[in-house]
């Protein structure tokens, strides 16, 4: 990887980081377990590595933005996540912020 490519990759990851949290919170307005969440996001054009998504779910839950429960589905125990009350409020605020940033960027461009 050249220096420019490396720099682009770092900046891209930085740009994506906040957006991923927003996407995960938004997608978890419906209940999902890790793998189906990943598929649902990929279906909408947002690919996320397993090693990024699954720890992110844990962090968001620890921050009180998600709730989770173990449940059996198709003869297998799975951990299902859903947006919590605090998470919904946070998602609303983040979406407002994201829209404002988008508008500003559009205006600048």
């Amino acid at each position, binding site marked *: 990887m050249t220096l420019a490519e490396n720099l682009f990759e770092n900046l891209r990851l930085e740009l994506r980081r906040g957006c991923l949290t927003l996407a995960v919170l938004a997608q978890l307005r419906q209940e999902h377990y890790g793998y189906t969440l990943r598929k649902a996001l990929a279906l909408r054009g947002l690919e996320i590595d397993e*090693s990024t998504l699954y720890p992110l779910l844990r962090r968001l839950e620890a921050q009180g933005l998600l709730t989770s429960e173990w449940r059996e589905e198709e003869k297998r125990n799975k951990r299902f996540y859903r947006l919590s009350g605090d998470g919904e409020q946070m998602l609303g605020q983040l979406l407002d912020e994201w829209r404002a940033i988008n508008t500003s960027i559009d205006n600048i461009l």
Partner: protein
Amino acid sequence: MDLLDRYLAAVKKHLPWQRQDDIVAELKANLEAQLEDKESALGRPLTAAEAEDWLKQLGHPIQVAARYQPQRSLIGPALFPFYCYVMKLAFFWATLIYVIVIVVQLATRTPSQMDVLAIVFRLPDGLLWTATWVTLIFAIIEFAAFHCPGKFPTLAPPSSNWLPSALPQIDGQLAGGKKPRSFAQAVAEVIFGFLFLVWWLLVPQHPYLLMGPGAAYLHGLPFQLAPVWVPFYWWVVVVNVAQLAWRSAGLIRGNWPRLRTTQTIVVSAIGLIPLGLLFSVPDHAYVLLKNPALDQARYGAALTSINLSIQWSAVAICVITVLRLAWEIGRISLDAYHKRVAAMQ
């Protein structure tokens, strides 16, 4: 799949023990679901090579486990600027103290070549220990701040305990219309201050540094210095070390363009102490005869003349120092008065 179980077991080893079973169970459910999808898409189980490629894509077990750990750092970003600042100061003081100790040692005995080598190689060792201790202390503070966040509220920058008006002046904007000191001037002051200190510390062992060739005749002279010169000598060392430290700290902190009035006042005030010592000498006997009984008649007049010269020199230096001190204190008072008047308007 055996390979997946082995992969999960490897991940588990690097997870926090309180949560490892829970995390691995969740990861297993997710990966097994993913594997099922892959196999149903292919219409057959994965081959060993395909399974290996898939697990490689997921990432090394250590990396995967690390993602579940909280972000950890020995010294976090909140504390790091203070750490760098303290480290710079610690290096400066460690070097200064080391140099002073070495100079005093050199002044009291003649070093061999091995001694000189040992001195040179001991400095990096000392600096390494300084860095170790500073890092250890900050790591403990970071650990404590992380585990008891409520008890260390002031660690997070930017601290609210700072005043923009206390920031150092920039070139050409010094209070009272004083000309700012250039960087070269500030560096020269430190270098010459250091050289003076070294020279001063070497003088007792090597009097020729003060008196030149005349030092060879010292033993033949009927005079000797009074005991008061010993504390006087060490007070001069103290004054110069204080001044050197202050100026070096100014260089490190970047506020060298202005010579602080406080610094001038304190150094002048300390400078009065050795002069006070000289005035406390009974009959102003700064120089004595080695053999008064034998030499009083012959050298008595010369001795009185020498002591009077020293006394008047001390008086002149004292008057200049006191006037300078009064001037600086007066200037501070006037500045404070002007500020108060400006604030009232």
